[in-house]
């Protein structure tokens, strides 16, 4: 089947969206951006196509009626099992990479002891792995670097203490190795992992294995269908370095404007708070950009600000919003710099301010920054669409609603649950238009 792909290479995450000929969204994929932009783009693309396969599995299985009533549970279990397979492969890779790097690290006489501690860390990591993917398990992130990293840090500290080796050495091995591991693409393993995961799912859900043949056939059928990359458009912070020819690149402002318009056709003003950019965009009724403003090169007021605070608090990024929502009285945050806000947070905590009140203050601080960028771009007009990773954060949304109401009165505020993919959706829409409206064919990379 013909597919149209948009890739948004952002500063912190790279997103991909796949649409079909009817502009239905088949799949979405996300990964963290890394030093090799080719890899980041390839991983996001692989993930989006994979997500597309799951979409197609669901359709195919629904068509046969083999899993009537238990289809959702089956797909969810299959996805968890698939993620577990994928995680184990990467963990094994990380283990081998750490062992290789131990040889070239300069730990001197401590090397054998660090090696033993390392083995113990990985023994525990592997033992713990399945529980990370159990039903209802909560993970701080979906990226290997983050999941494995937070487990490694916690286990490493314990092991270093028990074995009386330096925690620093274990951390250094992780830092050395993780870049190598996350720069590998495991696209070739997708089919194998899916088939292994399917076997696990049959064991986990015995009732489904009773209908094995009826379940397996449509899944294999989907796996055998080629998802043809007809045309790809790239955008985002790293777009200039994407492995595409110029013809396949669009600016992120254009893509975010169009993406927001596709999600909500009435959109007039877009606020996009991403990892390291905050953008305010005014679009016309066709989704074409009229004007825009962006933040300067500073993390205050961007998603990274919250990411940094989450690290400081040793919490998952998605836990911040719910905590801030419990606040009764927001604390005013004075620091303009993210790093200093982190220090202010620690001060406030040790002075006895409540965590939720500090969190509410931090969220308000971000939105205040966004409000000034919006004002510079020409103000907020109806309908107002909030996109980017931060749009998922309920405390940020609450602060935004309050401030918009105070300054602009009643407006429609649109927030799509998949708003982080807005730029990639805009890019995929450009890809679809290029072929179906302008009759273009993909150009080779120069």
């Amino acid at each position, binding site marked *: 089947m013909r597919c149209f792909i948009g890739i948004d290479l952002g*500063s*912190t995450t790279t997103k991909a969206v796949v649409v079909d000929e009817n502009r239905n969204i088949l799949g979405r994929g996300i990964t963290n*951006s*890394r*030093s*090799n*932009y080719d890899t980041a783009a390839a991983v996001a693309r692989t993930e989006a196509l994979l997500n597309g396969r799951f979409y197609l599995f669901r359709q195919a299985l629904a068509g046969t009626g083999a899993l009537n009533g238990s289809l959702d549970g089956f797909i969810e279990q299959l996805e968890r099992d698939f993620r577990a397979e994928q995680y184990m492969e990467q963990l094994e890779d990380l283990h081998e990479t750490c062992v290789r790097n131990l040889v070239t*690290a*300069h730990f001197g006489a401590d090397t054998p002891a660090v090696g033993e501690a390392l083995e113990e860390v990985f023994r525990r990591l592997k033992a713990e792995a399945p529980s990370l993917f159990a039903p209802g398990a909560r993970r701080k992130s979906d990226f290997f670097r983050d999941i494995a990293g937070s487990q490694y*840090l916690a286990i490493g*500290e314990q092991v270093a203490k028990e074995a009386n080796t330096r925690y*620093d050495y274990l*951390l*250094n091995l992780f*830092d*050395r*190795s*993780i*870049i190598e591991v996350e720069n590998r693409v495991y696209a070739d393993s997708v089919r194998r992992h899916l088939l292994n995961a399917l076997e696990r799912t049959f064991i986990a859900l015995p009732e489904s294995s009773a209908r094995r043949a009826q379940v397996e056939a449509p899944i294999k059928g989907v796996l055998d269908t080629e998802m043809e990359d007809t045309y790809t458009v790239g955008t985002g*912070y*790293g777009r200039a*370095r994407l492995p595409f020819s110029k013809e396949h690149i669009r600016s992120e402002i254009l893509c975010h404007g169009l993406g927001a318009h596709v999600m909500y056709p009435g959109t007039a003003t877009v606020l996009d708070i991403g990892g*390291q950019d905050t953008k305010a965009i005014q679009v016309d009724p066709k989704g074409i950009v009229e004007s825009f403003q962006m933040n300067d*090169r*500073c*993390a205050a007021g961007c998603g*990274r*600000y919250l990411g*940094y605070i989450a*690290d400081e608090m*040793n919490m998952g990024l998605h836990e911040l919003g719910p905590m801030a929502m419990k606040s009764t009285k927001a604390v005013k945050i004075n*620091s*303009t*710099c*993210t*790093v*200093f806000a982190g*220090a202010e947070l*620690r*001060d406030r905590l*040790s*002075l006895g301010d409540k965590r939720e009140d500090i969190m509410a203050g931090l969220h308000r601080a971000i939105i205040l920054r966004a409000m000034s960028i919006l004002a510079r771009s020409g103000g907020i007009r109806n309908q107002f669409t909030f996109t980017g990773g931060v749009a998922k954060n309920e405390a940020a949304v609450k602060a935004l609603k309050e401030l918009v109401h105070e300054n602009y009165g009643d407006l429609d505020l649109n927030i799509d649950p998949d708003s982080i993919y807005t730029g990639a959706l805009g890019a995929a829409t450009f890809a679809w238009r290029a072929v179906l409206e302008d009759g273009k064919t993909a150009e080779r990379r120069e």
Partner: protein
Amino acid sequence: MTHTIGIDIGSGAVKSTLFRVDEGGGIHWLAKRCERIRRRDPMTLAHEGRDAVLADAGLAANDIDYIATTGEGENVRFATGHFYSMTTHARGGVYLQPGIAAVVDVGALNGRAIYVDERGKVLAYKMTSQCASGSGQFLENIARYLGVAVEEIGSLSRSSQDPEKVSSICAVLAETDVINMVSRGISTPDILKGIHVSMASRIVKLLKVTGIKSGTALLTGGLALDTGLLAAVQEEMVAEKVPVEVASHPDSIYAGAIGAALWGAYRHDKLQELQRQAAA
């Protein structure tokens, strides 16, 4: 004989020292401990640091006359008193290298230049502004991303042939910039040296503002042992024609904790004296 502990809670590491000051003024450094925080609880580390220096010196908690904190240690519950870091770094710097004219403390968050007299009294000082670009944290973020251990930074930086110029970059967004540099094929030494050069220019600017005319400036704080930074600062001093020598000391990281312990001993003795006078 006065035993004091000085604990310096920075944003990167917790440093603890234990000193004995004799009646005649003789100063003996009995124990030290430095633990990097990296997402651990500084208060717990302060506790552990205190216990570790006590154990190393073979002393018990009630042998100690004064526990002084500095840096972000204001709320350490077992402390007797707290000292402002400007004064502790000045005192610690003069203890480590008598005769210096200035202390330049480069920590994880802030940089500051302190112009001192021969006894460690602060004559003038200047701190960096409210942005962490070009701070120790910034350098550490980058080193971590490059997979370089803190100890390796200096020698890598000194091997640079063509430093990559960095303008003012946000410490938090630094990682993205490194990703970009790496993907542009810039080598690790050139990235690190570029950061050192930018830090050095900030440090020299701070030092100039204090009004220092000559003598030696001692680097203290978490980055004092970074030989790449030291070299870059020396080069920048020459380039800017500031006639000040720059030096470092193997125990530079302890400057704040040393100063705290010594000021603690001083304050303790003063209090004793006042009490004696009141009793008499």
